[in-house]
């Protein structure tokens, strides 16, 4: 990851007549401050100009006490550089939507407007994303969280009936919550599944007379609600269907919004781990690692080699168990119960190993700034070798039972096809991006922990449909098994953690650390002000971008397809709603 040279950027911006303060911030990179009025021209220059920062990594807000800093984190893959465009907005000001330049910002913009009390304009669907009406902008410094004695005396909380009738209204109030889903702007460009295209008739036969085609069928608005056997958590998709075919779709999220980012501002740095575990609860090891990396970058602590190897070992174990919880239910969505249970049989052994080393089955609290909590136990070493032996045999079996099955292939082939440009435009990362042909993996391109010393390939496929996503993730599981074998054989000697104080007070500063979680690039943007809890911690959820890409790809599929398509994108609602 090289840092772009500030002079090139300020030169390009002066060329288009934008006065921008470009500076180099320690431990973060180049930050370019711009006034709100010319933020649109700046972003267009960054995207289309020769600077070619075509990828929006993240879009979030920081309340700096007197104004809201809207941060656009941009990245240029060709030159492997990152830049942060900061635009200062007054409280309650109007945030102009940039979705035509960076479509990846569709949902983050709604969340930012709602969480910081800004109004959103120029957005196709300016609705509240995570909270209901009557909720104050939570991420502003002014909004309070529950005090200690209110938390300790639970019986005092009384549920008023009107609390149960909270609706989700638009940021502009006139749109009713039960209206038909807003038309997503980018339907055509993204997905054109051939399964539903009207088949071309053989020669000699011509279509029925035109009168028949104008068959007026009544559209049905089907709410695939928060409680549905296969929405992988509490996601509500508002489908507008004509018969079995989906015409319009809109995702309602926020049913699991627990304010991880707001609570992080009151937690100590050591207590961030358990909080981040519960974000992406299937890959908690990676969330903890991202927070620890960010804190270490601020503290400038050097992590010993054995701790890095242990981090890779635990990360890869957690990657396989997370892919398993995607592969099983994805088979269940397609209707086959068998693979779900065979795959969970392997996951049981993995959770035994993880519990043996860290003490927890799913929530580990194992990775700390400076290293890891405890060393590997000898029994865990033996268990891992035993597990690897039968995992390699089982993974081929589980791969064959579903992926080799013609019915499953017929269900998954060319469903929800994302072109390389479409995937990049929507900010997809991880398996979803590599399935569309773009080879980017944080473990190899921005290496952290001990990944430079590991030898592993990154599986890439080019046809971008649901089947390719399954193929890419299955091969990733095999690569992870290879890496675990290397870690176990070559674990270096040495202590497993650096000397770090009990109560961490990193110096004031700002940094970004990214990790390749099973779902994509999981980043933590940490702003510290020298006290013992972070000033602002932004958690980049890779699956939020996958969800909005899936929302665009739904129209045109059938209901049975929509379930499998959303399953193949592998998202976790704990991380999307934070």
């Amino acid at each position, binding site marked *: 990851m090289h840092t772009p040279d500030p002079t090139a950027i300020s030169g390009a911006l002066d060329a288009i007549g934008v006065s921008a303060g470009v500076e180099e911030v320690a431990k973060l990179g180049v930050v370019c401050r711009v006034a709100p009025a010319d933020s649109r021209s700046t972003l267009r220059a960054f995207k289309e100009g020769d600077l070619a920062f075509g990828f929006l990594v993240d879009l979030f807000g920081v309340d700096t006490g007197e104004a809201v800093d809207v941060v656009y984190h941009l990245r240029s893959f060709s030159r492997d550089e990152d830049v942060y465009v900061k635009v200062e907005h007054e409280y309650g000001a109007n945030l102009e939507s940039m979705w035509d330049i960076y479509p990846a910002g569709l949902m983050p913009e709604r969340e930012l407007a709602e969480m910081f009390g800004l109004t959103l304009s120029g957005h196709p669907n300016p609705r509240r994303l995570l909270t209901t009406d009557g909720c104050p902008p*939570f991420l502003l410094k002014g909004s309070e969280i529950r005090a200690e004695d209110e938390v300790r005396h639970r019986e005092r909380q*009384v549920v008023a009936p009107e609390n*149960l009738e909270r609706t989700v209204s638009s940021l502009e109030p006139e749109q009713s919550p039960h209206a038909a889903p807003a038309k997503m702007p980018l339907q055509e460009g993204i997905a054109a599944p051939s399964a539903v295209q009207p088949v071309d008739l053989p020669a000699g036969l011509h279509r029925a007379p035109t009168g028949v085609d104008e068959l007026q069928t009544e559209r049905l608005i089907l709410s695939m609600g928060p409680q549905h056997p296969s929405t992988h958590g509490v996601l509500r998709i508002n489908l507008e269907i004509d018969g079995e075919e989906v015409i319009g779709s809109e995702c309602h999220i926020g049913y699991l919004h627990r*304010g991880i980012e707001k609570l992080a501002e009151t937690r100590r740095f050591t207590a961030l781990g358990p909080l981040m575990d519960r974000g992406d609860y299937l890959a908690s090891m990676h969330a903890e690692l991202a927070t620890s990396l960010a804190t270490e970058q601020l503290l400038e602590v050097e992590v010993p080699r054995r701790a890095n190897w242990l981090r890779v070992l635990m990360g890869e174990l957690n990657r396989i168990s997370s892919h398993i919880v995607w592969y099983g239910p994805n088979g269940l969505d397609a209707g086959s119960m068998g693979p779900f249970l065979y795959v969970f049989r392997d996951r049981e052994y993995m959770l035994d190993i993880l519990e043996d080393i860290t003490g927890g089955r*799913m929530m580990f609290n194992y990775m700390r700034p400076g290293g890891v909590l405890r060393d590997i136990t000898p029994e865990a070493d033996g268990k891992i070798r035993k597990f690897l032996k039968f995992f390699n045999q089982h993974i081929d079996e589980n791969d064959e039972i579903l992926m080799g099955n013609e019915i499953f292939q017929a269900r998954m082939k060319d469903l929800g096809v994302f072109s390389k440009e479409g995937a990049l435009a929507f900010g997809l990362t991880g398996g979803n991006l590599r399935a569309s042909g773009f080879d980017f993996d944080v473990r190899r391109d921005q290496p952290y922990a001990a990944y430079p010393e590991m030898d592993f390939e990154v599986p890439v496929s080019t046809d971008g449909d649901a089947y390719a996503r399954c193929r890419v993730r299955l091969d990733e599981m095999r690569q992870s098994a290879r890496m675990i074998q290397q870690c176990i054989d070559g674990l270096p000697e040495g202590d497993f953690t650096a000397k770090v104080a009990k109560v961490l007070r990193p110096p004031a500063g700002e940094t970004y650390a990214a990790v390749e979680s099973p779902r994509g690039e999981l980043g933590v943007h940490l702003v510290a002000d020298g006290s013992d809890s972070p000033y602002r911690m932004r958690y980049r959820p890779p699956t939020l971008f996958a969800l909005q890409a899936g929302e665009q790809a739904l129209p045109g599929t059938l209901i049975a397809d929509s379930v499998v398509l959303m399953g193949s994108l592998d998202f976790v609602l704990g991380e999307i709603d934070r």
Partner: protein
Amino acid sequence: MAIDKLTGENSTLFIRSEQLFDVARRKSLWYMGFGIACCAIEGLMHASGPRYDFDRMGVFFRASPRQSDVMIVAGTVNWKMAPVVKRLYDEMPEPKFVVAMGACASTGGPFREYPNVVMGVDKVVPVDVYIPGCPPRPEAVQYGFIRLMDKIKAQTEERLAHARSDSH
């Protein structure tokens, strides 16, 4: 039950049939998995997985609330989710039970400082069994179900004792 119209509130036939139905109610609890967050992976998927296998105890997954007896609230309930929990609880047919699984459903757990989180699902629906843990092990969920079965038995005994005391 129709039987008590025939034989009166406290006849032995009524009490015996009530006991029989009570055993049936305990031994076949169909749960409507209401998987909200991390507890859903542990409590619903692993508990009905190959090692812990809820099917052994007659506990079976039904997707629709109409056909389920127990609602497992597995995860954090916030203000946007509370109306959904309430509505699903009302849709379940009568002898229904609620198991609050995990710290978040019992008392708000690690997120109870956040104003958007309901501090415990018992603010929204009457809860029968609380299962502490974050997430509780699948065995802990099965132990919770055993406690639920004992509670159902105790409820029926107390109702029958009431019926018997009327008869003397």
